[in-house]
C-alpha cells in the first residue's frame, strides 16, 4: 500500500543544509496499522507530511497504492489524497465556520460523492455525536471535536488513514474513547493506518512500530506486547 525508496528531506537553514530525513526505506501492506514513534523534532511529522503527499521530498520515491507520489504535482497529489487518504490531527483541524455535519460532508463533497449528507449523518452516528450535528466546532468539547474529525476521515472510505497524535490534546478518558473508536473503525473498514504518536501505549495497539530518531527510521520489534519499553531490538526497517 505504501512504499518508500531512499526518501531524503533536506532544508536550507542559515547554517547551511540540514538533512531532516536520512534515506528512509520501508513499506506498509494494505490493512496494516503502523505507529511512527519518536521524540519531538525527530522528523516524524516531516515523514507523515511526505507520505500523505502534503510535502515533497528532496529525493527518493514514495508509492501510495501503486501511485508514484514523487512524480505527481500538487493538484494530482490533492486528488489522490481526496480519493484515497483520510486524516486525523492532534488539533482536530475542523473548519470553524462549518457545523459538525458540514465538516464531515466536506471531503465527500470535494471528491463528488453522491448523498454527502446522508453519508455524513451515518458516520456521525457511528462516532456517537449525532446529537451535535448542527453545532460549530467551538461549541464541542475536545473529545467531540476529535470524534467529528474521525467521522470526517472515514466518510470517503479511504484506503489509508494518517493520524497525527490523535489523542495528544485529549484527557485520559477521551483519549481512551477516541482510540477505541479509531481502531474499531479501522478494523471494520480495513484501512491502512499510519499513526504518529509519542504515546507508547497507543503505539502498541498498532501492528508495527517504527521509531524515528534524528531523521532515521528503524523498526521496533517488541518482545512483550505488555512491556514494549523493556526489550527493544533495533533492526533496519525492511529494505
Amino acid at each position, binding site marked *: 500500500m505504501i512504499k518508500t525508496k531512499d526518501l531524503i528531506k533536506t532544508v536550507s537553514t542559515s547554517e547551511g543544509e540540514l538533512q531532516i530525513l536520512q534515506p528512509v526505506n520501508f513499506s506498509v501492506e494494505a490493512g496494516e496499522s503502523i505507529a511512527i514513534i519518536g521524540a519531538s523534532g525527530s522528523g516524524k511529522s516531516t515523514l507523515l507530511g511526505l507520505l500523505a503527499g502534503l510535502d515533497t521530498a528532496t529525493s527518493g520515491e514514495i508509492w501510495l497504492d501503486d501511485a508514484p507520489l514523487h512524480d505527481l504535482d500538487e493538484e494530482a497529489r490533492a486528488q*489522490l489524497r481526496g480519493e484515497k487518504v483520510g486524516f486525523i490531527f492532534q488539533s482536530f483541524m475542523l473548519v470553524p465556520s*462549518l457545523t459538525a455535519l458540514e465538516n464531515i460532508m466536506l471531503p465527500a463533497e470535494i471528491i463528488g460523492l453522491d448523498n454527502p449528507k446522508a453519508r455524513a449523518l451515518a458516520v456521525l452516528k457511528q462516532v456517537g455525536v449525532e446529537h451535535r450535528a448542527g453545532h460549530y466546532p467551538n461549541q464541542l468539547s475536545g473529545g467531540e471535536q476529535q470524534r467529528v474529525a474521525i467521522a470526517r476521515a472515514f466518510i470517503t472510505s479511504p484506503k489509508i488513514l494518517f493520524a497525527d497524535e490523535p489523542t495528544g490534546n485529549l484527557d485520559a478518558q477521551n483519549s481512551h474513547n477516541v482510540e477505541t473508536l479509531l481502531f474499531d473503525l479501522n478494523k471494520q473498514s480495513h484501512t491502512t493506518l499510519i499513526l504518529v504518536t509519542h504515546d507508547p501505549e497507543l503505539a502498541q495497539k498498532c501492528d508495527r512500530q517504527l521509531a524515528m530518531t534524528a531523521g532515521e527510521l528503524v523498526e521496533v520489534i517488541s518482545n512483550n506486547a505488555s512491556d514494549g519499553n523493556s526489550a527493544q531490538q533495533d533492526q533496519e526497517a525492511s529494505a
Partner: protein
Amino acid sequence: MSNLDTVRVKTLPRQLAWRLFKHEAKRGELSIILFAIILSVAAVLSLSLFSERLQGALTDRSAEFIAADRQLSARHPLDPLWIAQAKTFSLATAEQTSTRSMAFANDELALVDLRAVSDTYPLKGSIKLAPELFATGVATTQIPQTGEAWLDSRLFQLLGVTIGDAIELGDASFTVTQILSEIPDGGFSVFNADPMVLINQQDIAATNVTGPGSRVNYKAYFTGDENDLEAFFDALSPQLDRQIHRWLSVQDDTSPIGESVARAEQFFLLASLLAIVLAAVAIGVAAQRYAQRHFDPVAIMKTLGASTSTIRKVYLYQISFIALLGIILGTIVGFLLQQIVVSALAGTVEVSLQVWYWRPLLIAIFTGSVCALLFCLYPLLGLFSIPPLRVLRRDISATFSSRGGQYITAGGAILLMMWVYSQNLKISLILFVSGLILVGLLLASTFGLIALGRVLGKGRMGAWQLAWARIKRRSLDNSVQLISFALTIMLLLVVLVMRNDIVQQWRDQLPQGTANYFLANVTEEQRPKLVEHFAKNGIDTDGLYPVSRGRFVKVNDELIRTDITKEDEDTTNETRRGLGREANLTWDTQLQSGNEIIAGQWHDQWTPQNSTLPEGVYPVSIEERVGERMRIGMGDELTFNIGSEIVTVQITSVRTVNWQTMQPNFFFVLHPAAMSQFRANYITSFYLPPERKPELTRLMAPFASVTMFDVDARINQVRSIIDQVSAAIEFILVLVLVAGSLVLVAQVQASMDERQRELAILRTLGAKGMMIRLSVIYEFLIIGLVAGFMAALANEVSLYLLQTNVFQMQSSLHLEYWVIAPITGAVVVGLLGAASCWRLLSMNTQVLLRKML
C-alpha cells in the same frame, strides 16, 4: 468520475462558498470586512449624493445670477435661427436687449440702463418689485406688458414720476406701472450708475434706440438638461465668433458666490476622496485579517483533496457574496444617512428636490467593487498559496507574500480611484504624494521608536515594559498599524482644517459691519458736509475715494484709437484686452486696505522733486490682473485723456486687490499730483444696520444729487449661501470623522487576534488584569501619540499643497494641531485599544485559551 460527480464537483465551490458565507455572516465573523465595504459604499454614496443634491441647489442659486444655465451675449443682434435651434435641443430660451438711453418725463431727463426682455425672462431667479420706493423687493413671475415700463426707485426721484405717469424712451412712450427692485442678472457696479428701466422686448423696436451708433448688448438665455446644453453649445460653437460672442455658464461665475460654490465643490471632492481612502484602508485591514483567519480552512480543504482552482473559486465566490451584500447594504445605509442629514438640515441647507442621482450610485458601486477586489487580491493570493502542510506545521504561513507588491497594488488602486472619481489628477496626486511622504516618515519614525523603546523599556517587567516589549517585537506589524492610524488621523485633520480655513475665509470676506450701501457722485463741496453729517448720525464712511474717468490714448508709444467704430471695438480689446476704452481712475497716497504691493514701490514717498520719472510723468499703481490682461507692467507709460487734458503716468507699482471686500476697489491708482487740476467726484461705502434702514431717506435728504446703491440684499444673499455651504461642510466633516473612527476601530479589532493569544498566555502565567490592561493602554497610547504627531506633520505638507495649488487660498502653519493631534491620537487610539481589550480581558482564561486553539 461520473458525469454526475463532475457536476457536483463543479457546483461545489459555489455551494461551499455560500455555506461558509452564511455561517460566517450569522456568527458575525464577516462583520469587519462587511462593515468596511458597507462603510465605503455608504460614505461614498451619501457624500456624493448629498453633494450632488447640494450642488444642484447651489448651481441653481448661482444660475440666478446669470438668469439661466447659459448665456450668450453679443454687441450684434443674435441670429433668430440659433434660438430656434436651441428649442430643438429641448432647451428653454429667453432674450434680452439692453442699451443706455435717455428717459424723459416732466421735462426732466436721465440716462437709464434700458432692458427689454422676452416673456420667458428670467429662466432662473426672478424679477423683484418693490411695493414702495427703496423697499425690499418681492418676486414676481410677470414681465412688463407692452406699453408698460418698470422703473428703478432712483428714477422715480430723478424724473419726479409716480405710478401711472408716462415716460418717454427714444421714440416711444410708456406708462410707469411698477417699482423695479432688481433683476437676476442686473449686475452691480458703482461706476455704471444708471438706474434701470425694464420694458417688454416687443417694444424695443418702437423706441428706435438700437440704431447705428448706439451701444447695444443682445443676450440669449438657455436652460435645460446639462447634456442638452453641452450638445447645443457643440452645435452652436462653429457659428460663433469669439471676438463678438460671449458664452457664459454658471461655472464661469467669478463673483464671491461663484467662487464660494467652486471652493465648496472642491471641498466635497476632497472629502469624498478622503472617504474613499479611509474606506479602502478599512477594507485592506479587514481583508488581511479575513485571509489570515482562513489559513487553516484552506490548508484543511487542500489536505482533503480540494484542488487549487476549487479553493480559488470558493474564495472568489465568497468575496463576491460579501462585496455584493456590502454594496446592497451600503447603498441602503448611505441613502438613508443622506436622507436623514437632509431632513436634519432642512431649513438651513437647501438641496435639490430630486432625491436620486445615478452617478453617485455608480461611483459607490465602483468604489465598493474596486476596493473589495484590489484590496482583497493580495491577501487572497496569499491565502491561495497556503500549503496543505500547515495542517501539520501550524507555523507555516502563506508562501506567496509580497508586501511591496501589495503596497503598490493598494497605492495604485487608491490613486486610480481618486483620479477616476475626481477627474483631477492634481488634487489626487497631491493627496497621494503627501500620503507617501507620511508613509516614509512613519517607517523611519517606527524604527526610531524601537530604538527609543530599548532605552525607555528597560527595567523590571511591568505594564510599561510590557508595552514597549510588544512594540519592539512586532516592529513591522506596528509600523503598518502606525501608518494606517497616522493616515487616518491625517485625513481627518486635513478635512477638519480645510473646513475651518474655508469657512473662516468665507466669513472674513463679509464680517459683521460689512458696508451695505455705496454712495457715488459726491462732489468736492459735498464731501466735508457728508462726512460730518454721517459722523453726527453715528455712521462711519469707509473713506471717500476720488474718481474720474480717463480715456486711454497711448500705452508707451502705441496709439490707442479712440474714434473706433462699433465693429472695431472688440478688435481693439483683442490686443489690449480687458478695459475697453475707458478706465475709472482714483488717486491717493495711502494704500487702501486689502491692497498689497507685489512689485515696485508704493508712491507715497514720491514727490516731483525726488522723481526719477521723466518730467510731467506721474506714478501709477496698477492691479495685478488688469496688468496681465492688458499686457502692461512695471515701467510702462500710460497716457489718459481726462476731460480735455492729457495725463501721462508710468507704472511704478503693481498691487493685488482683495475683490471680495465690499469696498470700492480700483485698477489704477494715480499719484494725487497727476490729478491736481481736475475736479473730482467721490465714492464711498458705509454700513447701516438693518433696523436703521427707515432712517435712510432722512439721512440722504441733504444730498439729493448723490447716488446711493443698496447692496444689503446682495450681501445677505451671499451670506445665506455661505452659511448653507458651511453647514453642509460641517455635515461632511462629521461623516468623514465617523468614517475615520470606524477605520480606527477596524484597525484595533484586526490587531486583537494576535493580542488574544498573548493575553491568554499572560493570564495563564498569572499576570494581573490591571497590568495587562495598562500595558495594552500604554501600547496604544504610544502608537496613538506617534501617529498623531506624524499626522500633524503630514497634514501641514498636504494642506500647503492643497491650499496653494487647488483651493487658491493663503496657506498658514497650524501649530495648534501639532499639540492637538498627538494628544487626541493618543487618547482616541488608547481608548479604542482599551475598550477592545476589555472584552477579551473580561473572558476567563479557559475561554481565552479555547479561542486560541
